[in-house]
Every structure is written in C-alpha cells, then in structure tokens.
C-alpha cells in the first residue's frame, strides 16, 4: 500500500546516506516505525546502493590510465601549440586553389545588386553544396547569411563594380554568427562576419590582391632557401591566388562549459613555372608564415590531375 506522506520521499536519499540532522533523522525513523511502505523502500534503496558500491568500488580502484599518458599529453600539447595552419589539410586547399587557376570556364556575370541577386544566390547554393568543410549551420541560415551580406552597403562598397565570382558560407563563428565569403573577379576575397540573429554584418575582412599584398607574400616565401634558389634562377611568380583557412577552436569557459568558435586566416598560393615543372607555395598572411612548399610537379601530370 502506498503512503500519502510525500515529504518523506523528498528526504529519503538524505536519510539512507545519513545526511540528515539528528532531529530530522529521528522524525523519519518515527515515520518508518508506522509505515511499511516507506520502510520497505528504505530497505530496497539501501540494499541497492550497497550493492552498487560493493560491486563498483573495487573495479574503480583498479582503473588506471596507460603509463605513457603524460608523454602522450605533452606531445599533443606541443602539436596543439603549433600554428594552426601547419596542421591543416594542404591538399584540400591545394585542390581548391588549383581549381581556380586552371579550372574550366567560370561564368562571369556583371553583378547587379538588385536584379542579379537571384542568380548569385543560385550560384551560392551550388558553391555551398560543394564546400568540403563540415557545415554547422542549416541551409536556410546559409542563404539568409549570404543574403544579408550581399545587401549590406559596406559589402557593396567594398566590392564596388567588380564581378562577384562565387559566394558561400565558410562556417560558423559562434551560435549567432557565420563567415560568408565573396570571391571577386580580380582574385580578391571578402569575408563578412554575419550575425544571423540581428541580421547585421558585424565585421568585414577584405583581402585585396594588391601589389603590396603580393610583395608581402613573396617576402614570407623567400624566407625558405628552396624558394630563394628558384627566384635566383630568374623565374617569375606567375600566379597569386588568395584563399582562406577556417578552423574551429574548442575552449573551456570559466564555468567549465565547452565553447566552439570559428576563426579565419588569409592564405595566398604562389605559383612558379620553371621549364616543365610547377611549384606551389602557400603562405599565411595573418601569421606571416610559410605553410607549404610543393614541387616540382610536372605540368602534364598536373593538368591530368585537374
């Protein structure tokens, strides 16, 4: 038979764990003396708790991590503290950048901010579907984010009358914001930080392919002796292709909660042609670092690959 005294249920765990004050403990005991229902429940819970402890405590005491746990941790920390660009998939970037250099015949359309919007959004959708970075944002939000970026006066001013070749969503920054990219006909890139909740463009990150930017990329590249040697042979850099690197960082908040935030860095790919070979150099402009040097790659093989 059930018991109507529901207050006992609220303190029954404190009672079996011996966490009640003496006076409360006495009151519960008094109740139990006249209540078979709660007496049986206390007996059942106590026995179950004791079984749990008796069975699992010896097992828990036997658990210990592998002896090399500290060495593995220090190695991992060392890797994590390396510049993030050193850990990225160069191949992914290489393929993307290479596609831009020699990849087919992109459709150039003079961008008309009003009439061209539908066309650009259609292109943007195709691009978004083909982006290999895992997306953490729904397709509706992506379209919305691109729409917000394209209609922003500052974005329009930055693009000016140049053609917008591609648009897409790079990835999320946090719960409310995403990075939208616009690839411009002269090779420049514009990244817009868009808050989809307030529907505002929070920040613009342009990478204009100016002579200064090209020179900065060369200055970073020639810190590597192999690239210096190539340039000393009198070859010119035949291509500069801006790109970006997006990464999700996991940090721990002061409350111990896991916070994921995305960040973006600008990359430039430099191409050198020497006889029958190609060389590709990737530099991170934000960090001022050479990421990767690839080559020689036979031109014939390269065009087959593409």
């Amino acid at each position: 038979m059930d018991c109507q005294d529901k207050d006992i249920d609220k303190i029954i765990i404190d009672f079996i764990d011996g966490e009640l004050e003496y006076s409360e403990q006495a009151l519960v005991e008094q109740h139990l003396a006249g209540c078979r229902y709660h007496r049986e429940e206390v007996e059942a819970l106590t026995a179950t708790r004791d079984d749990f402890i008796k069975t699992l405590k010896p097992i828990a005491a036997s658990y210990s991590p592998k002896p090399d746990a500290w060495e593995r941790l220090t190695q991992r920390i060392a890797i994590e503290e390396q510049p993030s660009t050193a850990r990225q998939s160069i191949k992914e970037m290489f393929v993307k950048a290479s596609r831009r250099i020699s990849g087919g015949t992109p459709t150039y359309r003079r961008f008309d901010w009003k009439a061209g919007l539908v066309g650009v959004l259609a292109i943007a959708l195709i691009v978004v579907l083909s982006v290999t970075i895992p997306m953490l944002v729904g397709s509706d939000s992506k379209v919305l984010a691109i729409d917000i970026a394209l209609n922003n006066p500052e974005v329009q001013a930055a693009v000016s009358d140049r053609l917008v070749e591609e648009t897409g969503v790079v990835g999320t920054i946090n719960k409310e914001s995403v990075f939208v990219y616009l690839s411009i006909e002269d090779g420049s890139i514009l990244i817009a930080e868009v808050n989809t909740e307030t529907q505002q463009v929070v920040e613009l990150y342009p990478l204009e392919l100016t002579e200064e930017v090209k020179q900065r990329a060369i200055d970073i590249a020639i810190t590597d002796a192999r690239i210096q040697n190539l340039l000393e042979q009198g070859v010119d850099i035949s291509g500069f292709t801006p790109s970006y690197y997006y990464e999700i960082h996991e940090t721990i908040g002061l409350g111990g909660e896991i916070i994921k935030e995305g960040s973006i860095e600008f990359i430039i790919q430099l191409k050198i042609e020497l006889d029958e070979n190609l060389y590709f150099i990737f530099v991170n402009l934000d960090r001022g670092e050479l990421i990767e040097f690839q080559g020689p790659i036979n031109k014939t093989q390269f065009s087959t690959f593409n």
Partner: protein
Amino acid sequence: MKDFEALFQEYKGLVFKTAMLIINNLEDAEDILQDVFTSAWKARNTFDSTKGKFIVWLYRITVNKSISMCRKKWSSTLPFEETMYTPTGSNPRYSPERALEIKLEYEKFSKTVDILDSKHRVVLVLRYIDDLSYNDIADILDIPMGTVKSRIHNALKLLHKQMNAAVMDVDS
C-alpha cells in the same frame, strides 16, 4: 610545465576512473583523459579559482566529455584482462582469484546497470564511487541540489526494479 605535470599526476586517476565508469570503454576513457588535460592546459591562465574549486571544474569537463561520448551502454564484457591483471602485471592490486570474483560479481551486476541512462549513471558514480557531496554534484552538473537527490532516488529505484526482475528470471 612542472606544476602542470604535478597536477596531471595527482588527478589523472580521478579523471580516467570517472570517465571509465560513465562510458565503460578503455580507449574512450584514455581519449577523454587527454582531452580534459589539453583543455586544462589551454585554460590554465583563465581559470578563476575564486569562482569554484579546481576539482569541481575538472569533474565538470570530464563528465561533459564523457556524456557526449557516451554512445555505448555498460556491458557485461568489461575488459578485465586489461584493467585488473594485465599480462605485464602492471596492476597487481588483486590476486587472480579475487579479480575473478570481482569480475563475476560485476558481470551479474552490469546487466542491471545497463538500464540506466548516462544522467542517472553519472549521479550514482559521483555520489557513491567518488563520494562527492550533493552540493558538489549539483555544481558539476549545473543542476539544483533537489534534482541531484531525485535523480539518485530514481536511479536506485530503477536499479532495484531491474535487480528484482533479474532474480525472478533466474528463479523461473
């Protein structure tokens, strides 16, 4: 780094054991140990000791990561050979006879524990294996203390019911 190593050596067992009891998978528990202390290293300059105890903070990360990795239920096939008497004899806490006894008890018990979801399992582990106070458990899980107690109550009731059902199965 020396201070951090001392911290790691002091708390690695606690983190590993708690993760293991929640997810029951050695490899995952090793991964969680690495994840937790990598996070602790990154946050070493931002942790505000005035806002809480370090151990509560460490438990919170461990439990959060374990629950998110908790794809598997406890099973009766605990990898005992690796944890209790390894071929290298690196863990000679129990004699082979005692280890076998514990293993049999566990195998019987684990079938009943299987019915608990991770949120009920966590409160029992923190309370009865790690001997934490209701208040600390409430802080770790970021839930009211009353919810901690009601979860413990429900978890024990579920376990008891399952144990009775198991006994009836054997009898019949």
